[in-house]
Each structure stands twice: as structure tokens, then as C-alpha cells.
């Protein structure tokens, strides 16, 4: 097949858009605080590592993952904010809500990106797909005051490449009959699903671009990269294999809660308390999704970032922290080295299954299990009313032993409470920091 030959003659047999927030966290901060517009802003103060950098900060060479110390050296006037995930989540769900005005088929892929299937909507809006996508982009920009980049093409994989092609505030439409002109410009590392290892492997065979990839024999691709490789091959050629998943997101494999301390600590009671708090948070999430877990992993991260972990299988599916507290204690005692300084703890609940159907083990202490569940339900009701972690495991009393430092500074919204709001519960409407 020569480079000039198109892969297909039609333009949009399917129309999938990928909407990707531009520097989403800092853009939300700039929307809430208009005086931060045009200034280098980063979030992630509480972790000491940059979670998101505004375009003004990126222009100074500051990237996600850089330490705050390095970033401040690159840019002394850098504005460093603690993350406000609550507000980011409100903006995220609003972005998806606006997308749903244009089609009911919207997939909430992550906090700052989503897919939508526009196929067939041309008749409703009496305009082309590109124009509908542009309307969507303009509505998000007008109502949320932040920009997104959009890719429009035949499959999710192609749309995702498109949204990355022009950033920020770009639209890239790639119809089927233009694929042969677009794909030669796309390096393999920009293809969804091809990680650094696969990219290096393909390079050995002279496959450099997405076009090289789709020109290869599918049998050869399958032999080298198996079924996932073939799936990518089809998606890049415009054959949609990945469905738009409109169901609300639900964890399928595992639930993990890892929290970095604001300052490393060698106080074993404090480290254990942090671990148990993660267990409680993970269990809250587990119950919110109506799941139970058959496996638990515990991890500790040392000051030098080396991490150690242990996993335990459980003899029944659990939903409550009290049910696994003794297991966590045992794993912790095996992992923890006395006197060592730690910076993070984590809990992963895995082997999840639906908790609606309940099977009792033959040797279960039925009465005690029932009692524990009832207690769990009551704690959940109380915490639902007064806010998360109002009733907590006694180990949590050690949480206050850590030294406070400037990284503990709560985000603006948590410091700007309206009458009737608490540190735990606030209105679900963003508060804008504008003096009127």
C-alpha cells in the first residue's frame, strides 16, 4: 500500500469525540480565582510534587511530577496551591453534563477527559460533526471558563490522538478519507495503548509512526503484540472496537488509597494511624460502590521513595475496616522497620465482588458478623450526616501527632466556609473568588 492511498472513502461513518481538559486542575483554579489568569500556577502543594502546571508555568519549563523545590528555582514568582479535588470534581461533572447536551452517549473516562459518540446527531443540530464539536467546546469555555481540546474521528483511539494534536483550546477533526494524511504525522508514542516498551520494540522493526503501524500485516501485528495490538491496529484504521461506556464509573479490579504525609515521619503510631485511615477511606469507597473485597495489600513508602508491600488473601469478602484491622496490623508489623522514616502509606482492596448477594460460610460466626455489619451501617449513617471520619477507629487519635508545616495549608475553599458549612461538608456549587 502506498502512502497516497486512502484507507477509506467515507468521511464519518462513526463520529467519536474525545474532550480533554487543558491543564485541568490549574484551569479550574484560574476559573475560580480570575486574578490568577495569565500567571504561572501549579497545584500539588500538599504533596511537594507538582500535580498540574498551568500553561504559563509550562512555558517556564515546569512540568507535572517536578518537585516544588526545583519548580520554585525555575520560576521564583510561581503560585503554588494545595489541591482542591472537591472543586475539580464539581467542574468535571459539569463538563460531562454539558457534553450530554449534545448526545446521551458520553463516557466519563477520567476527571478531565471524556468520550462522546455524536454519530447521527447531524440531523438533530442541522450542522456537521466538526461544528457540533465546536459548539460543545464553546459551551464548556463559556460556562466553566476553562478550555478543552477536542479530537473528532471514527474511533476512540483516533479521537484521543486528535485531542492531543492541537493543544490548548484546539479542535482536530480527522475524517476517514484523511486518515492516510494524518497518521504519518503521529509518532507511535502518541498512540493510546502503546507504552514505551512496545514503542521501542516496534522501532526495532522500523515502525516509527501510526501510519507505519497500520500499513503492517495484521497477522504480523498479532504475532508481535497479540490481541491488544490488533485492537489498536483496527482502531487506528477507523474500525471502532472500543465501546463508549456510558455507565457511571465503577471500580472493577481494585480500590486503592495512598496518602503521602506532609512531612516524613518515624513515629510508628502515627504511620500506623495513617495506614488505618487509608483503610477506612478505602472501605467507605468500597461500600459506596456496593462491593466487598477478598484481598488486601498494604504498602509503606520510605523517605528515599523505596516501597515495600505485602498482600493477604482473606477467607471471606469484607466491607468494614474492623473486619480486617487485625490483618493490617500483622502486615504492618512485618513491613515496618523501627526507626526508619516513612513518607506514605497505602491500602489496596482487590478481588472485588458485588456485595448485594450474601453467602454465609459454614463456619462463620453468623451473629457476630450481623452485629458488625449493623455497627458498620450505623457508623455510615452518622458519618453521612456529620461528615466523613467523624466516627473513626481509635488508632486515628494518633493522627494529630505529626508536626504541622506549611504544606498542611488547606485549600482556599476549605478556608472560606459559608454559614452552615463545615470543613467536611460544603455546598456543591463552586464559589468564585471575585470581589463585588
Amino acid at each position: 500500500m502506498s502512502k497516497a492511498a486512502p484507507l477509506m472513502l467515507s468521511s464519518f461513518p462513526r463520529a467519536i469525540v474525545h474532550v480533554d481538559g487543558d491543564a485541568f486542575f490549574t484551569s479550574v483554579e484560574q476559573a475560580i480565582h480570575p486574578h490568577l489568569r495569565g500567571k504561572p500556577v501549579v497545584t500539588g502543594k500538599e504533596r511537594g510534587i507538582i500535580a498540574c502546571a498551568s500553561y504559563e508555568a509550562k512555558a517556564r519549563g515546569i512540568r507535572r511530577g517536578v518537585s516544588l523545590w526545583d519548580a520554585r528555582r525555575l520560576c521564583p514568582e510561581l503560585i503554588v496551591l494545595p489541591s482542591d479535588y472537591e472543586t475539580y470534581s464539581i467542574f468535571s461533572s459539569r463538563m460531562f453534563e454539558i457534553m450530554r447536551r449534545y448526545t446521551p452517549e458520553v463516557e466519563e473516562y477520567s476527571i478531565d477527559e471524556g468520550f462522546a459518540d455524536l454519530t447521527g446527531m447531524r440531523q438533530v443540530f442541522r450542522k456537521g460533526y466538526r461544528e457540533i464539536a465546536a459548539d460543545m467546546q464553546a459551551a464548556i469555555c463559556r460556562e466553566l471558563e476553562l478550555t478543552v481540546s477536542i479530537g473528532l474521528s471514527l474511533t476512540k483511539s483516533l479521537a484521543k490522538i486528535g485531542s492531543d494534536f492541537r493543544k490548548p483550546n484546539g479542535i482536530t477533526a480527522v475524517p476517514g478519507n484523511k486518515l492516510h494524511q494524518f497518521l504519518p504525522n503521529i509518532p507511535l508514542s502518541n498512540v493510546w495503548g502503546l507504552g514505551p516498551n512496545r514503542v521501542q520494540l516496534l522501532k526495532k522493526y522500523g515502525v516509527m509512526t501510526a501510519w507505519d503501524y497500520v500499513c503492517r500485516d495484521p497477522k504480523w501485528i498479532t504475532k508481535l503484540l497479540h490481541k491488544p495490538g490488533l485492537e489498536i491496529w483496527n482502531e487506528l484504521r477507523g474500525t471502532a472496537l472500543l465501546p463508549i461506556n456510558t455507565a457511571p464509573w465503577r471500580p472493577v479490579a481494585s480500590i486503592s488509597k495512598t496518602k503521602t504525609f506532609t512531612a516524613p515521619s518515624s513515629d510508628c503510631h502515627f504511620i500506623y494511624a495513617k495506614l488505618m485511615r487509608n483503610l477506612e477511606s478505602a472501605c467507605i469507597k468500597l461500600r459506596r460502590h456496593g462491593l466487598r473485597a477478598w484481598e488486601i495489600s498494604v504498602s509503606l513508602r520510605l523517605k528515599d521513595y523505596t516501597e515495600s508491600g505485602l498482600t493477604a488473601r482473606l477467607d471471606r469478602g469484607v466491607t468494614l475496616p474492623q473486619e480486617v484491622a487485625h490483618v493490617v496490623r500483622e502486615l504492618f508489623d512485618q513491613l515496618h522497620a523501627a526507626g526508619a522514616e516513612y513518607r506514605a502509606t497505602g491500602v489496596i482492596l482487590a478481588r472485588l465482588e458485588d456485595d448485594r448477594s450474601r453467602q454465609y460460610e459454614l463456619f462463620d460466626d453468623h451473629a457476630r458478623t450481623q452485629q458488625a455489619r449493623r455497627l458498620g451501617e450505623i457508623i455510615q449513617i452518622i458519618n453521612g450526616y456529620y461528615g466523613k471520619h467523624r466516627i473513626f477507629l481509635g488508632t486515628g487519635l494518633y493522627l494529630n501527632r505529626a508536626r504541622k508545616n506549611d504544606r498542611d495549608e488547606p485549600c482556599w475553599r476549605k478556608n472560606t466556609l459559608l454559614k452552615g458549612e463545615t470543613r467536611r461538608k460544603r455546598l456543591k456549587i463552586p464559589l468564585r473568588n471575585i470581589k463585588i
Partner: protein
Amino acid sequence: MPRQIDLKKKLDQLRAFHRSERRAPSYSEMAELFGYSSKAAVYAPVRKLIDLGYLKRSAGGRIAFTQKATGKIAILGTVQAGFQSPAEEELLDTISLDEFLVRRPESTFLLTVSGDSMIDAGIHPGDLVLVEKNGAPKNQDIIIAQVDGEWTMKYFFRDKSGVYLDPANPAYSRIRPRGSMVVGGIVRAVIRKYQ
């Protein structure tokens, strides 16, 4: 002059605390509640309220509410089970305060008012305004706008010579934007919460 203690206000504050927390506050919480900087100051109003029978001292020396303060809980009696009650059916067509105040949840924001330029329109410093970002303002709408770089809240008007903004306070004057004007949204509701 001796310090005047507004017991009625104190009692209201204590009742509000009880409503949200379902328990009596500690001395330090009372100090915070009444706006006192020391716990000792709380002692006087508490003693008065005990004398009046609104509070009592429980076994451990902690303060507890009496029924006089919290009110009695009414028991409705037996409720018939089985068919859906007609009351429930009637309530299907009611809206929540959320829906009443917020027409477009995905494009509504909150702002705290600090200035007094709309005071004659009933918008006071400290009030919250619900601002909708969707749609174009019409004459007499109250809008949030950025005029020549400065944010303001005013009445919006359009006439033959263009757009102008009017305050609701004689101390301020009409604004005709000379440079740029960006509409930040239309005020759809004002909220003033007293406690």
C-alpha cells in the same frame, strides 16, 4: 457599666448547636459559639440558664440540655402500613429548594458580596448570590461584569448608544464601559443565611 448578656440570643445559639449536633456543647465550644475568647466567660450565662431551667449539670459536671430547651419530641402514633400514603403521592410534584433556586446546575456559581452598590436592590454585603453563566443579559437583569479590569455587580441596561450599568445605591454613579466589558454571569437569586 456591667456587661449585658443577651440570654435569648445565647439560647438560640445553643438550640442551633443542638439541632445540628444532637448534643450539648462543651465549655470551649460554647466560648466559640458565643464569640468569647475565654472559657471562663461562658460560666456566667450558663449559670443563668441553669437557674432558669434550660440547662442542667449532668453527673460528670458536663452541661446538658433540659427538655425546656430542646422541646419535646412529638410521637405521631401508629401509622398504617400497606398502601402508599396519599401524602407521598401529592409530594411527587414538589421541588426542592435546590431546584427552586438553581435553574441550570451545571452553569451556576456562588459569589460572596462584599460591596454595597446594590443595597437598594436588597443585596447586602455578606450575602451570597447565585450567578448563572449561561445566556445573555436582558435590561434590568443584575449582572456580574468585569469592566476595564475591575469586577462589579450592577443592573444591566442597553440603549441606543450602547450598554451601561446602574448601581442600586445613590452613592455610586452609572458606568458606561469605555474599554472592555466581560459579563461574568446573571444573578438569579440572593441568599442571606442568618446563622
